[in-house]
């Protein structure tokens, strides 16, 4: 719980932050809410030489209506996601999932951008932005670029962000009123990480599922879309039986980890059960 030495800067603009980060090279890390990075520092599992604190960059906070999208600043906290009316109206899944993150203290400090850039497959929000087909906005020395969520999560704690790039915003398509959603999180204690989490979105039409999107938390080294479920659910009847059947393929193509809280076969089983439950809730049946 005693971190090694590091240098610390707190820039006052995104440009300065990018310069500082680029100047620090591979040994520099961005810190926002600190809810993931600080524990790693204190356990001496990470030894960055420079921390670039973006905590002073207020332009990275908050949610704006951008037509058919919402633009969410990377520093927007979980607490703000839970309580923001635009989020609640247009992508309630994100608010619901953010409300399950750890405890109130963490939700007040931790940020959406931090959670996504940290890319912990056990984190709740990566699977959610994946299911939402969100787009990550990165700012680097060469300017800005957009990365689709499907290409953003590369490996365990590894993203498509280049050295010197900062995740500054997340663009989320607005979902119409015909979409239902559910984040089904399974964990042993309220503060614990998900053993498995399922983020489900369902668009209903005439008693059927017109479209389903399912993101899985902690079923591999990155958040995963349950493609087999999405295919099976599309066009299926919006009934518990049909949705449970569609959920039977939830663990296809996954490589769940083994740890104290669950062996891979148990996680596969949970993914199937929870996906069924999440689809039912999202479909309102």
């Amino acid at each position, binding site marked *: *719980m005693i971190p090694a*030495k590091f240098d610390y800067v707190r820039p006052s603009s995104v440009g300065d932050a990018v310069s500082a980060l680029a100047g620090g090279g591979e040994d520099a890390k961005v810190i926002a809410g600190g809810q993931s990075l600080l524990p790693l520092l204190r356990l001496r599992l990470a030894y960055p030489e420079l921390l670039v604190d973006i905590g002073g960059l207020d332009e990275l906070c908050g949610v704006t209506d951008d037509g058919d999208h919402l633009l969410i600043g990377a520093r927007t906290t979980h607490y703000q996601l839970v309580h923001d009316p635009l989020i609640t109206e247009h992508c309630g899944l994100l608010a619901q999932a953010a409300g399950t993150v750890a405890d109130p203290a963490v939700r007040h400090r931790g940020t959406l951008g931090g959670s996504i850039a940290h890319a912990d497959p056990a984190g709740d929000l990566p699977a959610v932005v994946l299911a939402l087909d969100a787009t990550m906005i990165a700012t680097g020395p060469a300017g800005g670029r957009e990365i689709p969520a499907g290409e953003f999560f590369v490996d365990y704690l590894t993203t498509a962000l280049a050295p010197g790039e900062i995740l500054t915003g997340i663009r989320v398509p607005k979902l119409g009123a015909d979409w239902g959603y559910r984040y089904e999180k*399974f964990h042993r*204690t309220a*503060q614990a990480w998900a053993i498995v989490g399922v983020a489900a979105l369902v668009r209903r039409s005439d008693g059927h599922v017109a479209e389903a999107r399912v993101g899985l938390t902690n079923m591999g080294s990155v958040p995963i879309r349950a493609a087999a479920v999405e295919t099976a659910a599309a066009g299926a009847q919006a009934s518990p039986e049909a949705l449970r059947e569609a959920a039977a393929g939830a663990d296809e193509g996954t490589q769940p980890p083994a740890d*104290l809280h669950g*062996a891979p076969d148990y996680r596969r089983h949970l993914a199937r059960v*929870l996906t069924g439950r999440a689809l039912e809730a999202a479909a309102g049946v």
Partner: protein
Amino acid sequence: MTATVDAPTAELGKARLRKEDAKLLTGQTNWTDNIKLTGMLHLAFLRSPYAHAKITRVDVSGALGQPGVIAAFSGADFAAEQGSLPCAWPVTPDIVIPPHPPMAVDEVRYVGEAVAVVVARDRYAAADALASIDVDYEPLPPVLDIRTALDPGSPKVHEAGNKSYEWVFANGDVDAAFSDAPVVLERTYRQQRLIPCAMEPRAVVAQWVGDEVTLWSATQIPHVLRFALSAFFGIPEQNVRVIAPDVGGGFGSKLQVTAEEVLAVLIGRKIGKPVKWAETRTEGNLTVHHGRDQWQQIKIAAEADGRIRGLSVDLLADMGAYLMLVTPGVPLLGAFMFPAIYKMDAYSFKCTGVFSTKMPTDAYRGAGRPEATFAIERIMDELAAELGIEPLELRERNWIKHEEFPYTTICGLTYDSGNYEAATAKARELFDYDGLRAEQRLRNERGDKVRLGIGISTFTEMCGLAPSRVLGSLSYGAGGWEHAAIRMLPTGKVEVVTGSSAHGQGHETAWSQIVADQLGVPFEDIRVLHGDTQVSPKGMDTYGSRSLAVGGLALVSACDKVVAKAKIIAAAMLEASADDLEFSAGRFSVRGDPEASKTIQEVALATFAAHALPEGVEPSLDSDATYDPDNFSFPHGTHLCATEVDTETGFVHIRSYVAVDDVGVVVNPLIVEGQVHGGIAQGIAQALYEEGVYDEAGNLVTTTLADYLVPSAADLPSYRTERTTTPASNRLGVKGVGEAGTIASTPAVVNAIVDALRPLGVQDVTMPCTPERVWRAIQAAHGQPAQGQPAQGSEQSGGMA
């Protein structure tokens, strides 16, 4: 000065807000880690990464050149002075107590054992420099499973072998009880290893001035620690002062003489500067002594009507790598509790203490009694299922009836008081036992995916440690008395000194309430002093739910002495005979002449002035008293738990929890409620969440609170708690309460889980009952008949004769 004080109303039983809390809630607490002394240096320990290895070389020279580093030492540097950490409880004459150097010299025997230390100007520099120390290890095979550790081919933890002791107890004709019994059940239960997680981690500050040392430590036992530093490490007792400042919880984990305390004292002496060490949570998980870790084989013989004939218990207890302060005695505190509230003809108990290459185990909330209570309450449910008798009915057929108290159990303990009927009746009603049973039947008939289970725990325990003669008969190294002192100040205020060193219990409040009633002074006028051997030189400290049941009675005795002396002085002031005075609500008055009276405050001032004291009376109104109990304290109660078990995922949700405790007369209901709530939470934690896990190489896996899951309020139900009051046979009528909730709740929860799943063929779930384990238990039972199946091959014989 004329003292006019309104006669106070009785304090006993009042839900006083705690005197301690304003300070705690506003951040004015004096934790050991808050102490800053001029010139103070910081310690960081290098710890073994091996479960078992020879140390072939330690080179600390690399650390010496690092920034801020003042000194660095290895175990060899302390070889001449560090001696061995004490074990105060040699339970048998032939017990093996291996040497336990505070810092390893030749060999390490668990991951986390200290092998070197850096002394630096700040804790960051100290932590950084650890990487510059070179240690060469020759790995040795670890010993990780005590069930095979006694096999002839097993690697050895110590040269003398892996067995520390075997302790036996028997009463009645056990063979006869079992030989032709209509029903015999045998089960094996696992008490997993637990890691105490006090809110405040351990911390130590040691300061030498000349030949005197002051040790501040986050300890439960300043008095025992002072004695140990002197008796075992050669520092003259009069030169040792131990201070336990505000201490943030212990649960037994701070009932210890630790390596870090001893080393801080030795290092402080070596370098002539004050030194501090404060553990990180990871360091704590590795090296605070662990709790439980037993394999329990329990066998019960009964008549067809459920009456118990006999009980036989065979324990394997994991000592860990060394015997610490009371390591070997912990299972023995449970030895007398397996028969619990039940009558039987015969009982036998055997415990084998076994070494492993893990952190030593020692006292943890309940210490021995939770293990015993778990095993008996679990097998009572199994017996009920086997015989088809309602489990509460089975218990009632066997328990000691109210009119039978005092009752001497098969273990030879005399339970002074109890009313199991009253507590159970109350719990049953609050819980809506019959309603829940009806719902359970309905859900079972429907084949619901979420099943309902009802768990019962009708428990008692022995606490209020302890009659000194009993401790002596069990070979414990000290007594079980407690000390108290009263100092009436000239202005009529009162200082109370207690040897019972509080670390979160609320002594300052409860002791004030007791003294307020005894002396008739206002609650606010009393200040309670504790936790510093210079302020409170005598005491046996706080553990084993002993503070009130032992220390509280010392307090009453000290108050008696003050009143007796004050009466003599009041008599002189009133020109009456002491025999004619009565004392009530703080006032001495002449019988038949209520106008002629003096308050105890007036007496205190007159005693201070000493102008007209009677012949031979000294000018002070103080007293000292020591109380040695003649029996243990036996709180009891009935806890009922309803769980909803999701058979698809294995998740257990506690739907309702009712606790009816009988802790005798209650001094402060708020404090009792707090103890019960916290206790239940800690017991539920064992049932569902917590387990210290070592991997196959002997590395602790649960080094953080992300892996070692401690439940929070968000995970726990809203308990319904009530009390029955059956006064204990001491002057206050009080019993201990600190451990009762923990002892009661673990079996209530596990019984509820098994009760929910018994229709699916499940007969046991190993603790902690994680969702994965519950799910696997259901999978394993799948397809098997629902009734009468042995649990994992542990049943020896069963069924009706």
